């Protein structure tokens, strides 16, 4: 982590304000109106793009380097768990355990 304690607090409050603004804008300011179809379709795809990017970032990169390490074993186990429709916590714990095991062996 390169952020100072103060910067992390700043991030928390700016993000909270922004998230609240998004929720309130939709619910209260704009209300029940619909948006142009193209905007709606693109916004609906944000989680798909970003979550997939976050998965690979957290598994295959370390700072600015592309890396292949124990976390890949964790991801492989998580993939199987998600495919088997395991509960969220099982996916997370299994990935951790696999990563820890590979690290302990390596």
């Amino acid at each position, binding site marked *: 982590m390169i952020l100072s304690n103060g910067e992390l607090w700043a991030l928390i409050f700016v993000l909270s304000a922004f998230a609240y603004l998004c929720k309130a804008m939709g619910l*209260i300011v704009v209300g029940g109106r619909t948006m142009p179809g193209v905007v709606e379709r693109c916004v609906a*795809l944000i989680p798909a793009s970003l979550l997939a990017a976050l998965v690979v970032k957290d598994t295959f990169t370390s700072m600015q380097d592309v890396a292949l390490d124990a976390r890949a074993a964790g991801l492989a186990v998580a993939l199987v768990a998600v495919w088997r429709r395991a509960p969220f916590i099982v996916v997370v714990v299994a990935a951790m355990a696999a990563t820890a095991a590979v690290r302990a062996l390596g």
Partner: protein
Amino acid sequence: MSDATGDDTSGADAQRKRVVSASLTLGAAVGVTALSFGLAAVSAGASVWQACALSFFTFTGASQFSAMSVVGAGGSLPAAFGGAALLAVRNFVYGLTLAGRVSTDARFRRLSLPRRLLTAHFVIDETTAMASAESDSRLARTAFWVTALSLFVTWNAGTLVGALAGSVLDMRALGFDAAFPAAFLAMLPGHLRTPQGRRAALTGAVVCVALTPFVPVGVAILVAVVGVLHGVKP
């Protein structure tokens, strides 16, 4: 759902019970997710209080996980904010969806502004899903509020317990850096049901890895959002 036999009141009661119990179950399940958030946030460098503040004030899981993931990887404040903020934009759409359902009381009178401002805090994935599943507006309101309140309690309690546990454990030896990608992976399947969703995810992943060596930490995540352009054509 469609087995509403018997007289009207018992049918309505059964419907209400079904909605309440489904909403409470969801709240309990999400509490477990919060445990992993608390652990992950502390492993990324946040204090217990900071993890709790995120869950209380930001109160939208994917954005919280994203912000802490970038912070933990050594990203800057703008980079951490950017990705999390983009994920928060979908809450705007949820607000639009819910406006007609939760902005009025049982007699269809518009709620006062302070009450609508309070309601806005609870406009998230789960409340939107539960409220939109009910066609009856009264049941939709019940689904929204039972989900909102049970989830708010379990989300914050889970974060606190997870963060406390995280602050006494050796996170790296336990493989906790693998918790973030596993959590994001577990959130993905619902977004991969359509061809556009799958293309957006693939583009996001490829762009992120390809750019990582060339841009500051966390910025590749922001650029990965170009994957949404798969939605331009219906």
